[in-house]
């Protein structure tokens, strides 16, 4: 009752204030409106002329806005993405472009933060040359851009965007994520771990202190508890993103003596952690699981037997990848150009571009060979099923992607100087996803040990 009273009073004050504002700007506005109208007329003709270009005619170039981190700590993950996009676009253009139209990309550095990213998105979207966006890496930026994509009606492919919150409302028309998300990605690790180490009792988690780290810990813990209720989480550490030093955390892990250490640290953080933890015996005293371990295989000497994976199916050396000549060619070209084999963020980006290319093809054939509009392009992505470099990407009704999950352990081979992934399993994408619209954590808590038993076993993927 009181609240209502107060709000009425506030609203009254407000309207009088608002009146003041409008009085204040009413005058200049009405004046400049007149001046402006003429001026605008001229400009508007130009604007309209460009916006209403008949979308059915093939443009001279297909512009893409590609969002990734090219500076700051996250560039360790973002630059492989940019490199892959560079290479992929060169390959596409060498073959005449997408459906005969050459691709030209504009890169946007996500390190500018949400405001800069949004400004750039709007600017790029305002230019009709840019038909689609590949955005973005960071979950925070994806969440910030998604409403914008719907509003500006620009097909937007989330090339990374791990957060399971992105498409949770199921209403997206223009935002697609041809990718796994945190839910299947981290359930996969729980299942693999329990298959490989069924007697595990105590687990310690060390994840970066931001949404991705907390989400992953929540999902991984929930899955472990559902599949093996007597598991105890003995330590949960969340070092700040970009911390150079993990010595105290390592001492803490050493005193807790867990059977398993799980981590989704990445980039320089992961390299630092491995480098500091390995000599201090963490890898021998505990079964270490590094969810993004594949990204550092070529950079730090990981010991044997560490559980690693690629958050999806994007491993350039997986049996499927090796069987695909396109992938082998891509990996070698990448190595030749950038000095390293493509880590999974690079593959994710390459797959996102393949997904986009396939959508154009589908849209054109549906359109009797005419160049599609943005809306038609988005329509073509709906429910699409695309063969990527490393497997198949199925788009669900809620625009979320179904991709397989590959997990394995590090092994040494004679083929490479660095450790590779062995004893692999490949879980089917749909088997680890809740139904569209279902609360992920609620769904995870319903999982039963029988469910895990029904899935393929470690070593089954070769």
């Amino acid at each position, binding site marked *: 009752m009181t609240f209502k009273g107060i709000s009425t009073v506030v609203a009254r004050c407000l309207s009088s204030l608002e009146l003041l504002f409008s009085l204040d700007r009413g005058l200049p506005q009405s004046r400049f409106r007149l001046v402006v109208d003429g001026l605008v007329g001229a400009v508007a003709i130009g604007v309209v002329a460009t916006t209403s270009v008949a979308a059915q005619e093939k443009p001279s170039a297909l512009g893409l806005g590609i969002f990734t981190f090219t*500076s*700051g*700590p996250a*560039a360790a993950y973002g630059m492989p993405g940019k490199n892959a996009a560079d290479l992929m676009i060169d390959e596409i253009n060498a073959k005449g472009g997408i459906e005969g139209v050459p691709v030209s990309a504009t890169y946007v550095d996500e390190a500018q933060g949400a405001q800069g990213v949004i400004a750039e998105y709007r600017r790029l979207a305002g230019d009709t040359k840019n038909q689609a966006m590949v955005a973005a890496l960071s979950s925070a930026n994806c969440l910030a851009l998604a409403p914008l994509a719907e509003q500006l009606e620009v097909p937007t492919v989330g090339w990374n965007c791990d957060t399971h919150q992105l498409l949770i409302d199921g209403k997206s028309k223009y935002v697609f994520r041809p990718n796994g998300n945190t839910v299947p990605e981290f359930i996969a690790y729980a299942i693999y771990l329990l298959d490989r180490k069924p007697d595990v009792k105590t687990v310690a988690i060390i994840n970066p*202190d931001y949404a991705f780290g907390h989400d992953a810990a929540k999902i991984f813990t929930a899955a472990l508890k559902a599949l093996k209720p007597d598991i105890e989480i003995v330590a949960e550490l969340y070092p700040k993103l970009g911390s*150079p*030093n993990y010595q*105290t955390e390592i001492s803490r892990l050493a005193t807790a003596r867990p059977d398993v250490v799980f981590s989704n640290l990445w980039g*320089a953080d992961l390299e*630092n952690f491995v480098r500091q933890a390995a000599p201090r015996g963490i890898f021998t005293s505990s079964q270490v699981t590094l969810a993004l371990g594949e990204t550092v295989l070529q950079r730090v000497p990981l010991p044997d037997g560490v559980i690693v994976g690629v958050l999806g199916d994007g491993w350039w050396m997986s049996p499927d990848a090796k069987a695909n000549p396109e992938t082998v060619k891509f990996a070698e070209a990448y190595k030749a150009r950038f000095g390293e084999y493509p880590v999974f963020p690079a593959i994710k980006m390459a797959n996102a571009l393949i997904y986009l290319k396939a959508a154009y093809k589908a849209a054109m054939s549906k359109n009797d060979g005419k160049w599609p509009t943005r809306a038609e392009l988005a329509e073509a992505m709906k429910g699409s099923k695309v063969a990527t470099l490393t497997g198949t990407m199925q788009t669900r009704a809620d625009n979320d992607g179904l991709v397989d999950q590959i997990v394995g352990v590090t092994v040494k081979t004679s083929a490479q100087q660095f450790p590779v992934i062995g004893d692999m399993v490949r879980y089917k994408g749909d088997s680890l996803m809740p139904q569209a619209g279902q609360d992920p954590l609620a769904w995870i808590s319903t999982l039963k040990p029988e469910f895990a038993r029904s899935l393929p076993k470690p070593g089954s993927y070769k």
Partner: protein
Amino acid sequence: MSNAIIPLLLDSLASAALIFFAAVGLTLVFSVLRVLNVAHGSLYSIGGYVAASICLFIASRQLNPYLSFAALLFSAVLVAAIFGPLIERGLVRWTYGKSEAVQILVTFGLFLILEDLQRVIFGVQSFYEDAPMRLLGTSSIGGVVYLNYQIVLIGMAVVVVIGLRLLINHTRLGRLITAVVTDREMAQSIGIDTNRIFILAFSLGVFLAALGGALATPTSGIAPGLGADTMVLAFAVAAIGGLGQIEGAAVASLIVGLARVLAIYLAPSLDAVAPYAAMLAVLLIRPYGLFGSVTARRI
């Protein structure tokens, strides 16, 4: 928890040593030049990049790996010799006698420039060389394996504190610096070349920053963003100890180190807040820091 007492103490000391190296140069420069160098964190990471590059060079030429210890020191000297005079003469000198806003902004501008330059030169991937750490091996203390390198760092920090104190109290340069700190105009009027003192003091600060970065590289790689994080941490430590107080910085490093370690052991979710919370708590009770004195208010 009782079995964790020894690791807890050792971790606090090790963590304090790293924090101290990040902060001591900042506080030294402030005590002499009265300039808060916001680019201090960038010089720290540049020291790390240079040290790692030299160590990598040593490794690639298969030279004696023990040379890399000398390389850590040498790289700090190198960075100080290049950047110290350059920044002091080129930029900082120009801000003497100007308001703090100008000093902070000029060094903030420098910080922005240096951060981007590092990215352009060294790329975005983590940069490291861990030969010095591997050479020293490990020890098991209180049931936990520690790197001997961590223990060496604790010793180094003690050496730096004592060394700086000796330098200031017992050398000619130290006395000149003290004279300039106490009364700049008087020092000038009795013929002390204050310009030279400023260059030396600033370069010493750069040396300490670069040394901090260099000593950190064997265990932690240098990556973009480190400069900004180091800066706030150094800032917090310098403020807690009292700006310009060397022993203050040492004690403050212990406090922040202990706060962080306690947070990680007892309440991991508070880890990131710990240094700032400690800073706020100290500054609210003693606004000029634990060892600082009330002189800054304008009359």
